């Protein structure tokens, strides 16, 4: 079976479109998108009388026609940001009212994901090509129901999915980060969550872990060391491991066939941990490039026969 795995597209619509085409492009039998589906940035487009105005990547842009507006919205979405069309009063309100930005962010994220699920329906031939999606630590809770309700995408969180004799278990939670994001838990709790989902696997020889957090100290979890103000230390040259010890220990004790991860975008790599092949394809969603891993699984031998990290 050939699997394509990508992760951390953070709202980039161009990456989502590429992901939907990845099965055909790589001739994959299954496509899996790890967590962190949603974006981090919202760009207000202010609607004035007869034109729109926005600042995109530091440049002030005036849009006079609907076509121009749509083009700018497309550019913003492709970068992983959410265009929010607002009146000047609404923009003022977003600035002034407590919680208004959060509500608008959630609204834009859920609308965007709804649109993505509609796109998936067409591209994945109504579910003929299996597609697994999961949340990550940066994803709001509202996305779970949207993905769950999609007819052609399977929400993986906390489930053991049987895929042609292979067993895929997913967990979008991570160990605590300096940003205090949605799906974070102390290591002990992570281990409990892992044990709970892994206990559903009948055969570890053909198990695939899809855990958002990479294993600690594996080289798949190297991020720039930050000081107290979240500034990279020593010119960004110093990296440190920030992965999960619970994930590391679980891989070492259960020894699944394959373990795929994300979360740390800059730590693209491959690591053999005992019999387990652990992979973090990394992410460069901001460039519109979909980094991923093409994996050939041998059901008979219960091993990863071939693998290649790609920049699609």
């Amino acid at each position, binding site marked *: 079976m050939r699997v394509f795995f990508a992760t951390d597209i953070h709202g980039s619509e161009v990456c989502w479109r590429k992901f939907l085409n990845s099965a055909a492009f790589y001739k994959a039998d299954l496509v899996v998108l790890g967590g962190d589906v949603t974006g981090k940035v919202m760009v207000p487009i202010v609607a004035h009388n007869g034109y729109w105005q926005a600042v995109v990547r530091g440049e002030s842009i005036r849009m006079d026609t609907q076509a121009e507006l749509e083009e700018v919205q497309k550019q913003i979405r492709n970068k992983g940001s959410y265009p929010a069309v607002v009146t000047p009063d609404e923009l003022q309100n977003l600035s002034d009212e407590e919680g208004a930005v959060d509500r608008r962010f959630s609204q834009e994220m859920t609308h965007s994901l709804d649109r993505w699920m509609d796109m998936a329906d067409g591209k994945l031939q109504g579910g003929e090509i299996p597609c697994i999606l999961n949340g990550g630590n940066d994803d709001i809770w509202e996305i779970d129901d949207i993905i769950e309700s999609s007819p052609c995408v399977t929400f993986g969180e906390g489930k053991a999915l049987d895929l042609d004799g292979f067993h895929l278990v997913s967990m979008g939670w991570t160990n605590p980060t300096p940003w205090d994001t949605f799906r974070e838990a102390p290591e002990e709790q992570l281990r409990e969550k892992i044990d709970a989902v892994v206990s559903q696997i009948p055969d570890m020889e053909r198990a695939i872990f899809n855990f958002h957090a990479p294993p600690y100290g594996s080289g798949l979890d190297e991020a720039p060391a930050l000081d107290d103000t979240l*500034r990279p230390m020593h010119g960004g040259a110093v990296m440190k491991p920030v992965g999960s010890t619970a994930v590391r220990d679980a891989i070492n004790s259960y020894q699944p066939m394959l373990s795929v991860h994300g979360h740390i975008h800059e730590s693209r790599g491959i690591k053999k941990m005992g019999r387990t092949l652990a992979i973090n394809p990394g992410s460069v969603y901001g460039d519109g490039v979909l980094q991923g891993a093409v994996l050939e699984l041998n059901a008979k031998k219960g091993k990863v026969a071939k693998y290649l990290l790609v920049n699609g």
Partner: protein
Amino acid sequence: MATDAIGGETPTLFLRKATGLVRGWSVRDSIIYACLATNFVTLGLYEFTFAGPAFPKGQFITATLISGVWVSFLVIAYAGLIVTIPRAGGDYVWQSRILGSGLGFVMAATGWWFILWLWAPIYGNILSVQLFEPLWATLKWTWPNGGAAWFGTNNGIFIVTLITIVIAGLLVSLGMAGYARIQKYAFFGGMAGFAVVVILLLINSHADFISSFNLYGQKLFGVHNAYAATNHAAAKAGYTTSPFGFGPLGPTMLLVPAFMFFLLWPNWGSTLYGEIRGASDFRRVFTGMFAGLWMTVLLTIIFLLLIVKTVGWGFYQNLNALDYNLTPQFGIWPYPFMFAGWLVHNTAFQVILILVLSLWFFGWVGTLFLSSTRVIFAAAFDRVLPDRAAEVSEKRKVPFYSLVLMLLPAVILAAIYAYSSTFRTYTLDATLVIAVTYLFSAVAVVLLPWLKPDLWRASPASRIKVLGVPIVPVAGVITIGLLVFNLVEWLSNDLYFVNSHDSLIFMGAMYVLAIVVYVLARVVRSRQGIDLGLINKEIPVE
């Protein structure tokens, strides 16, 4: 959900609190890194010993300024690449993505891996001449056989290069975390040492220098009336230098390819940049490299002016000429900072000054293998190299195999360098091969708007314009001019010692080796059913 509004009173952007939203790295750190990479003390002074005698009519300050201005365009071009594809791996990633995987591998393997084998003995030699030789001479130590001069013997060069390789290997093994801190202290300590030299040369007169030089020339090396003897020996050898000035331009331009030995590296940290980016990053990235480069230019000019004032320009060039002719006045490399230390008649002070100034070396040596291991890792993850090349030992986190790939050939080349004085003259090969790698990155930045229009449009670099013209591709063209000029000079002018038969074979062999590794990888992986051509093939969007 916590959010931040950007844009002042009328927000233009809302950020929600999410992983990886970090502040930009400190510009000060980038400046330090770039200044240490274009290291005036270790590389600049070392190069001057060769450049002055080889091009006696060239004017140093003019050449330094021309080089600084020209390399500034390389800084703009690289800042453009960094903010467009901010990826650890630098040239390998940019060239692979923009120009193709095969070219990216060949250029990165030669420029960031193979040629650094040759840099190891160069680093070793610099350690010898700027730390061991002056220290031994000052303390009048006679062990090992011959004292300070022993470090200039074949065995001395080899042993010190081995020490350098071990230090650099250890620093890679121990990780950058501790070393980056050491690097910062080394920079500030080294600057303090440089400031002491400046003060000494500033407050003392030319007569004071001659007197001190003669005193310690006699005391440490037994040379009577050393100042006059130096000038006499140089004249006897037929060397005459031009008076210090600013022209003519023609011979001065010939110094530019020589000065690339230290001024071409403000972008050395570009292999290390990660994912961090933002609208203002171009300015931050550019400022770090640019200020680092111009700090080096400034140090160079200060040094040169003080040499003219206190040491004497003709005398300094005569010292260098004797070393160039393999007849150094005191039997060791003429280290100007050791001579400056002689202005204080106190051995302890002189020793401390030499030790403090050696911080310029120790703040710099750790980067020798760092970028190479990153390129090796990246190539292993791309399955071009065996998977083992990217393995890191579980317990000690040592990248054992990549270090072997670096260290073993470096030791072999260290031996050849130490025991073959002909091979030793190929030091500018080390610059040339990296310049070729830079050249292809410059080509990549020029072609970027056409080959990857979406990537270019999305890049902050595309919005940096002068009179409506995007400056980054223009800077790329000017950088190509710089590199082509240097390559033509290196390959056509015998005085750079790189266009000899053996040197060309040495460099050619590196490219052939890289091509063979890549072709072999394609064949082997293809037999395994893995298509390496897929690595950078773009998935259609629609």
